Structure formats: structure tokens, C-alpha cells
């Protein structure tokens, strides 16, 4: 089954039960302090490279969150 989530306002389909970092599939979610694009590294909640804004809450680790219908993701670029 698929759920619809929004990444920077654009609708995307993701498999129900998958985690958000998997759904982002390497799309950078943030910029480093010197402006480099970054995406998930450790996949397990340790590195904080996968941070995005979820439903208005900034700096959430995408790899620790399961996608749900209507989830609104804003990349911190």
C-alpha cells in the first residue's frame, strides 16, 4: 500500500511503513554549514545528516520516522 506525502509541497508516493530517509532516496534534506548538500549517512539515528522539517517541526531525523498519509516534509536547504 502507498501513502501520499509532500516534499517541499510536491506530492510523492511512498510505501506504507517505510521510513522517511528511505522515501527521500538520497535526495539531500539539508545543507551543511559551508553549503554542501547532505543526505542520510548512518541510516540509524546517529549522524543527524538526514535532518528535515516534518509538519513544521525543524531538524527531525528522517531515518527515525515512518511515513504517513499527508506528511509534510520541508527540506532545510
Amino acid at each position: 500500500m502507498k501513502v501520499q506525502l509532500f516534499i517541499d509541497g510536491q506530492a510523492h508516493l511512498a510505501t506504507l511503513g517505510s521510513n522517511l530517509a528511505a522515501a527521500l532516496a538520497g535526495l539531500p534534506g539539508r545543507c551543511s554549514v559551508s553549503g554542501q548538500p547532505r543526505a542520510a549517512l548512518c541510516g540509524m539515528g546517529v549522524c543527524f545528516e538526514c535532518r528535515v522539517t516534518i509538519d513544521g517541526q525543524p531538524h527531525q531525523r528522517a531515518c527515525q520516522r515512518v511515513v504517513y498519509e499527508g506528511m509534510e516534509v520541508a527540506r532545510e536547504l
Partner: protein
Amino acid sequence: MSSELHTDIAIIGAGPAGIAAAIAACAQGAHVTLVDDNPRPGGQIWRGGPSQAPASASSTFRQLADSQARLLSGFRVAAIPAPGQLLLEDPHRAQVLRYGKLIIASGARERLLPFPGWTLPGVTGAGGLQALVKGGLDVRDQHIVLAGTGPLLLASAATLRAAGAQVLLIAEQAPWSQLARFGWALKAYPAKLAQAASLAWQLGGVPYHHASHVLAALGQTRLEGVQLQLGARTLTLPCDWLGVGYGLLPNTELLRALHCQISQGAAEVDALMQTSQAGIYAVGEATGIGGVDKALLEGRIAGLAATGAAAAAQALAPKRKRQLAFAALLDKHFALQPAITQLAQPDTLVCRCEDVSHASLQLFDSWREAKLQTRCGMGACQGRICGAACESLYGWQGSGDRPPLLPTRLGSLLEPTLAKANPT
């Protein structure tokens, strides 16, 4: 809203070790609370939770479901407000958990070391990539290179392949002589040997290079390819994903914050898994990297010991010797070759949170100095990634964990005060 929870036994980490501890402690009639950062129980190896776990795990998950353990998934330990208390936080709330005894089953993370290009999107840990695939990452027909060291490279490759990826090759840094000795020693561990044989069979056709490593990840804004050292020759390959991990390291932040003795990067425990602090136990990868069987056994021992069943716990202690011997084998045969710590170029970033380069860190002699001058280790990961890198590259020990354990919300830190002011 503030609230306080009470429990006899708090267990941090719902991987195999924490789950085994919960089952054993519940069977003794204790009230148990199992806390894990992840959305589902299972830890690293059974990451997808009960529905995706292999048959070998299903009876463990069934026993957990049948037990009275309270499971708090998606909660992390954010701080230690007072002895006998933990501040737990999820994305929406904070709660104080008061406990009688504490079992720390915090598992391990990958050792990730810097090389040119390692900050490009598309470069992940080797186990990290496996975790993303277990979490639903679609890798069908994607070209993937895995590199680093240890058995996790094989387990990861098998997961990726089963998910439809094309694993182009595996680069293992250990030389052939070490791998051959490890293979020979495995004969004493029939279950591990069978596991290795099954992985080898699943990976038929994937080239496995020894004495080999990544030199650089290539690309502008995303990974496009990889440059490899394969024995004496170099090779450049286009690829979509690159997973690189140099073995596992115990997660010791919580143990350190509780002043438990750590030696050689792992919790020091007695035969009943108690740490140097009375009433605080450590189990699984947190006491040294040894895999799932060691984790399950240690969890059981601690679950029994913490609930007063010392004789039953003691009876299991001899079995642990064998698991520790296996752990020692892993450590010895997959030790890092010197070349691995010399891959960073002057402009390679070592601290990815604060973007601090190898050239600027080489100027310092210690963590303390480097931290003060460059902010290395002071970003969001609080040294969890660059700490291991600086230890491997510069020999600096311990990045100095101080509470809070993870970046936390100010409101959460006020929680214990609020809980006291408005008792529920």
C-alpha cells in the same frame, strides 16, 4: 503536559539484547519498561520489527508480545535529571521514567571514516545502506559498491541483492591471510560457519576483493562513481550508491553519562552483566562487538540477575565465554590496516556537522584543543561520527560526552521541574 512513569526495570534499547532482557525479567514477575529510539522494536539486525524478521527471530518477538513489558518505541533517552531517573523524549513529548534497576542495551553503530567525497549524498555506511533498504529504500537495478571491513559487508550485500540491487563488488580492507585465519577459526562455531556459508551462497557472483578499499567517492552534488584500490591496482567505477563501514563500535554515551566504567570502548561488566555502578547492567554490543547470539545470551543473564535470580543468571555465565572468544576473533582479524586512516586529503571534511577539514584538525594534539578552536565534535551528532574518526586518524581518545545525551528541546529539559511542580 508533564507526566512521570515508574518501573522496576528500565531497559534502554529494544534490539536482541534488550528484548531478551525484557523477556527474562518479565518472566520473574518484574514490571519492565523497554525504551527504543526506533519506530519498531528489533534493533539493527531485526530492524523492520516483527513483520519483517527472519524465522529465527519470530519466537523472540512472540515471547516479547506475550510478556507484560511496556514498550516505548520512538523514545530516546535525552538526559539524566537525577539518579534513578531518565528523561525520555519523542518528537512530541517528554516524560520522566523512574526505575529501580537499569539495563543498557544500546547496541553499536558503524565506524565511519573520512575519505575524499564521503560527504556526497549517495555515500552511506555499509550497514547504514542495509538499514535504509530494510526501511523501504528502493534499490532495484541500482549499481552499488560496498567497502570497509567485517562480516557486516556480506550481510549488507545479501540484503541489497535480495532487494534487487546490483552489487558490483565488495572491497574488504583485511588482507587474505587474515581472512583465511578467520575462516579457519570459524570451524569452532558451526552456527556462524553455516551463516557465512549461506551468505557466500547468496552472494555467488559478487566479486569479493581483499586488501582493498575506497580511495574516493566521485561526483559534484551527488555520488556518480567510486575510485577503488583493489590489491595492487586501482579501478574507477560508476555507481548509484556506495556503502562504506569499518566495523562496529559500542554505543557508550548513556553508560558514560551514568559514570559506568568503560574499557577499550565498551562497558566493563562482571559475570552477571553488572557495570561498575550497582544496579546498572550493560548487555549486547554495548559490552563489546560479538553479534546477535552474544546479545541474546547477555540480555537473558542481565534480565535474570536484575530481578534477583542470581543463580539462574550464574548458570548461563559459562556459555558467555564462547561468545566472548568469537568477539575477540572479529576484533583481531578485521583490525584496520594503516592505509585506511590515511585516506583523508587536506580538504576532506572530518567533522561533518561543523565542516572541519583534516588540514585544520592536524594542527592540534587533543580533542579539547581542537574543540575549542574549530568546534569539531560540537555539532548535532555531538562527536558520534567524528569522535571515532579522530580517534582512528589522530589517536585522540573520548570526545567527552556531557548531558544532554542528544540534542534536545529546551522544554524537555524543564520537564522534571514541571513534573515536580504539577504532580499528576
